[in-house]
């Protein structure tokens, strides 16, 4: 085996009482692509941030290229040839590509020579790795895939020999992801070391040489990729055999509850995010919308739930139209039996600074049950909150506790309890289990299926293909704002993956 590019020994890191990393040992060979997988919150990003000098480990040793290294700031990491591509790009949006490249790596106090040097360097990198990008383009005008390329160029420009990528494909289409993987392979051939952090096992299998699995802050295993399987990695990640499919009977679809016709939505910049989308949602079925994040699913949900207004098209709820021209009032839609569990519970679905009981009425605070004239009926609100805590096993079971003090799974239960207990005819759910612990996932899935079995119409948007496949009675695939296909629950991952990549769509366009 080649010499180790990085060796970590006994790394520990705590945030307050949380032990994000405990006793991590890891060896990454030079000139390989090494994957690190784990669930959200397993400690992958923390570990890499320690390596990049963003945080300091409480204890442990880092060796880079065989020599002990003290990495206190990103500067130290850069000097040791470590570069990082963050999940959220670290770019200045209104700067040019060149300005972003030289930021922090300027040659001297004036910019002139730095810019000249960067221009010729970019030229070289473009030739060597096929990393094309217009050096004078402004970042915010570039598509996401190119922005990521700028991040990679930034690292290479600083002489990175070891490149860490944190969840790089989260925002990419499958085609863009493939392009990225080609680049990574090329980097490997040139002798660079690549560390890929992800929670997508398919990517691990596709591109890495070795893979390490993290769970709850510990490193549970390292395997050679070709000697392991997706099933083994999945089990290592969650620590027990996962029930990928929830038990459920066949759907008995009834009348149309929600009819979306030719819906088009633009974002604040005028970019079309939802493009002429039509579908029906019937009583007694779960329709899942699959797609890579950023293909218009979020905007679709927001338009249906009245948070975002649409440019054209119509949405009929129980046979009556929703006002899309102005801004529809989400409160009015609730009254008409449309409940919404939003994707972002931290900023949208909940007010984290509120007590639990206050969040249990958010959006229904104008319901006469919770009011006495203009005043809040505190007794009724508290009784109601206690009731939901019991029914949904929300822990800790204290309605006076600040919501920020609940775990992700319990926060999601607070939202679900609130929305489901209103007994809505239509429930739309964005990312039902994002950042939720495994135990709660099962609970949430069962609840959603129970809703369906009661004859409610349920619409689920998720970027987790497994979740879509195990929950849905029908699957719609969104790509670039359009619905590019409909499949039954028996559709294979590969089939859906092609649709999500927009393969058919692109062919039709050509």
């Amino acid at each position, binding site marked *: 085996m080649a010499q180790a590019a990085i060796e970590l020994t006994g790394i520990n890191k705590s945030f307050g009482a949380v032990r994000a990393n405990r006793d991590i040992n890891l060896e990454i060979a030079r000139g390989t692509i090494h994957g690190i997988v784990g669930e959200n919150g397993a400690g992958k990003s923390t570990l890499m941030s320690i390596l990049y000098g963003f945080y300091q480990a409480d204890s442990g040793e880092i060796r880079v290229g065989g020599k002990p290294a003290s990495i206190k*700031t990103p*500067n130290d990491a850069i000097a040791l040839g470590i570069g990082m591509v963050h999940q959220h790009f670290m770019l*200045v949006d209104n700067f040019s590509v060149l300005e972003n490249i030289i930021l922090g790596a300027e040659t001297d106090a004036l910019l002139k020579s730095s810019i000249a040097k960067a221009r010729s360097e970019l030229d070289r990198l473009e030739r060597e790795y096929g990393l094309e990008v217009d050096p004078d383009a402004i970042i915010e005008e570039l598509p996401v895939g190119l922005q990521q390329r700028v991040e990679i160029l930034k690292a290479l420009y600083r002489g990175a020999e070891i490149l860490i990528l944190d969840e790089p494909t989260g925002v990419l289409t499958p085609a863009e992801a493939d392009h990225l993987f080609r680049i990574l392979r090329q980097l490997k051939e040139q002798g660079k070391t690549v560390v890929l952090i992800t929670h997508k096992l398919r990517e691990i299998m596709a591109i890495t040489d070795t893979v390490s699995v993290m769970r709850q802050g510990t490193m549970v295993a390292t395997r050679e990729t070709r000697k392991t399987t997706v099933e083994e990695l999945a089990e290592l990640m969650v620590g027990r055999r996962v029930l990928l499919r929830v038990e459920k009977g066949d759907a008995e679809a009834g009348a149309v509850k929600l009819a979306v016709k030719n819906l088009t939505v633009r974002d604040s910049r005028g970019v079309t995010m939802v493009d002429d989308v039509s579908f029906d949602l019937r009583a007694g079925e779960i329709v899942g919308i699959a797609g890579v994040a950023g293909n218009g699913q979020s905007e679709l949900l927001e338009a249906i739930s009245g948070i975002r207004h649409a440019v054209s098209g119509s949405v009929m709820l129980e046979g009556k139209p929703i006002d899309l021209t102005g801004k529809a009032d989400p409160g009015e839609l609730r009254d008409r039996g449309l409940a919404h569990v939003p994707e972002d519970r931290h900023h949208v679905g909940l007010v984290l600074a509120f007590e639990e009981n206050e969040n249990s009425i958010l959006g229904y605070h104008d319901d006469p049950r919770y009011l006495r004239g203009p005043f809040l009926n505190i007794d009724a609100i508290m009784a109601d909150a206690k009731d939901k805590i019991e029914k949904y096993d929300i822990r800790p079971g204290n309605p006076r506790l600040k919501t920020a003090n609940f775990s992700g799974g319990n926060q999601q239960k607070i939202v679900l309890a609130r929305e489901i207990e209103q007994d809505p005819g239509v429930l739309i759910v964005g990312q039902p289990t994002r950042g939720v612990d495994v135990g709660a996932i099962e609970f949430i899935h069962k609840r959603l299926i129970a809703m369906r079995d009661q004859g409610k119409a349920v619409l689920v948007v998720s970027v987790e293909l497994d979740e879509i496949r195990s929950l849905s009675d029908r699957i719609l695939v969104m790509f670039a704002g359009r619905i590019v296909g409909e499949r039954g629950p028996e559709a294979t991952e590969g089939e859906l993956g092609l649709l999500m990549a927009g393969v058919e769509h692109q062919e039709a366009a050509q």
Partner: protein
Amino acid sequence: MDIFNAIIQVLDSTIRLSVPLLLACLAGLYSERAGIFDIGLEGKMLVGAFAGAAAASVFHSALIGLGMAVLISVAFALVHGFASITHRGNQIVSGVAINFVAAGSTIILGQAWFQQGGRTPALQPGERFEAIIWPGADAARDVPIIGPIYAELISGHSILVYFAFAMVPFTWWVLFRTRFGLRLRAVGENPAAVDTAGISVAWLRYRALICTGILTGFAGAYLSMVQNGGFVKDMTAGKGYIALAALIFAKWKPVNAMFACLLFGFLDAASIRLQGTPLPIVGKVSVQFMQALPYVLTVILLAGFIGKAIPPRAGGVPYVKER
């Protein structure tokens, strides 16, 4: 000819009145471009004015006065930094606090040290910055049109006036042509990008605030050592806020800042000139109306009726490393 002379005089006082605005406005530009809102320009100018006049009078030196003005003003800027950078406090609250401490302490200390009801002693020649007469200014005075322009508008100002106007291209150069400027603009837009590039966000923002302090020190020194022969309590009289308005009006750009300050300075000069004299068509314009005009214009700008003022994106938000 009378009208011509009147115009020259109004323009001359426009220049004099815009200088403190311009210095304070550029001062604000450094900190706001770095992502630190600064409504404490007023207070820093005030302590600068006080420290400048007090030191000049005690040490009989205009230069020592200026140095002291800058020093104290920078010290106040660092307090703002300590609260809003190191302790991630609310930048507006911190700015308000600085304005109060400045207003109170200049009066208390002034009274305690000089016993002239909050004034500092009148500055003697040598203790203040004198006007610089350019070569041939007196001779040229009688040349029609160009003469008065040269003699009144270009020549005959103190060194601080020329300094203020020189700071405009200099600031532009710093922002757009130097490493410091690139980083400063970056930290005001996306501090995380600066942090991951291995640059200290805090130190960079502190340096921006030091620039702010230096320039507000100059602005204060101009008020007490050029425009006036000594410190008078509350002598900034809202100029820090007008400078802030000018900064928004200028959309955080140095050259625009100069024009915004000249405009606001002109309004001030015109209101003094027009006091009581009726204008053709509009008749008598009240002083209060002219004084309120910069604020009204800024509100109209902020309302988006004349272009949109988009502040630096990270402005006002303390930088916290993401977990």
